[in-house]
């Protein structure tokens, strides 16, 4: 009887893990909107490195946004490396925002800072 309960408990936990890992966070694009938008603001925090590079950008009238970049290696390949941007810099991020309208989070495909453009996901940049 007890064994049965534990088997159920274990399989329940495993199912939960599967469901959670299926819904990728900053990985993939399924959590983001298909349309791209441009966000302008001031860098409040910058992190380049594993597990995932991010930027916190203060916008003029929409508060603080979290900008997700690509994985560390791919972000580096775009030229966006340590020292390229610093806290206080004006920055423009083009990317796909979270499909949750309450969540101020964007996955960037292109970053512009100090007159330089960094194409994080060149193949995803939509030119209109």
């Amino acid at each position, binding site marked *: 009887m*007890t*064994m049965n309960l*534990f088997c159920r408990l274990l399989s329940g936990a495993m199912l939960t*893990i599967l469901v*959670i890992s299926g819904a990728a966070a900053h990985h993939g694009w399924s959590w983001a909107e298909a349309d791209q938008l441009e966000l302008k603001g001031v860098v409040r925090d910058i992190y380049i*490195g594993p*597990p995932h590079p991010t930027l916190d950008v203060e916008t003029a009238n929409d508060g603080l946004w979290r900008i997700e970049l690509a994985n560390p290696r791919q972000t580096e390949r775009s030229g966006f490396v340590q020292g390229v941007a610093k806290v206080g810099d004006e920055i423009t991020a083009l990317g796909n925002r979270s499909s949750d309208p309450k969540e101020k989070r964007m996955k960037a495909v292109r970053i512009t800072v100090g007159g330089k453009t960094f194409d994080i996901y060149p193949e995803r940049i939509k030119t209109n």
Partner: protein
Amino acid sequence: MIDALVELLQAFSEWPGAVVLRRVQLVYLLVNAAHIVSIGLVVGAIVSLDLRILGAFKGYPISVLGPPLSRIAAIGVVLAIATGLMLFSVRPIAYAQNTAFLVKVGLVGFGIINAVLLHRSRHWPIALSGGKIHRGVKVSAFLSITVWISAIIAGRWIGFL
């Protein structure tokens, strides 16, 4: 108080190991893999022992399974904490503000206390020598499975906040 904590975390993020982990991706990857291996040791060993306590594999005595499985799990916990601290040092302030991370640390603490209490309980030597498995020992085993798996779920959740 909070300022002192932030300062401490900031200092931790500047130790040479953290700098290497941020700069050299291979090192981060290897420490990350070592963390997963450590977690595998903990859960693999302890869930096996917990299931035995709860009535599975009755043909294999707890006196034989208990000591090696407990020891492997304990080694796994020590290694997981060591590698976990290294991964934490990459972005300590960000992790300290991550709810999933805090929940995970709490669960790991609870799991360790649960294990220590079981080993100190007078019912444990009886169970180890093949005697009656007291209800408290079974409750502890059930908590152990639940807590360690929950800790993994919370840990996996860190990257999703």
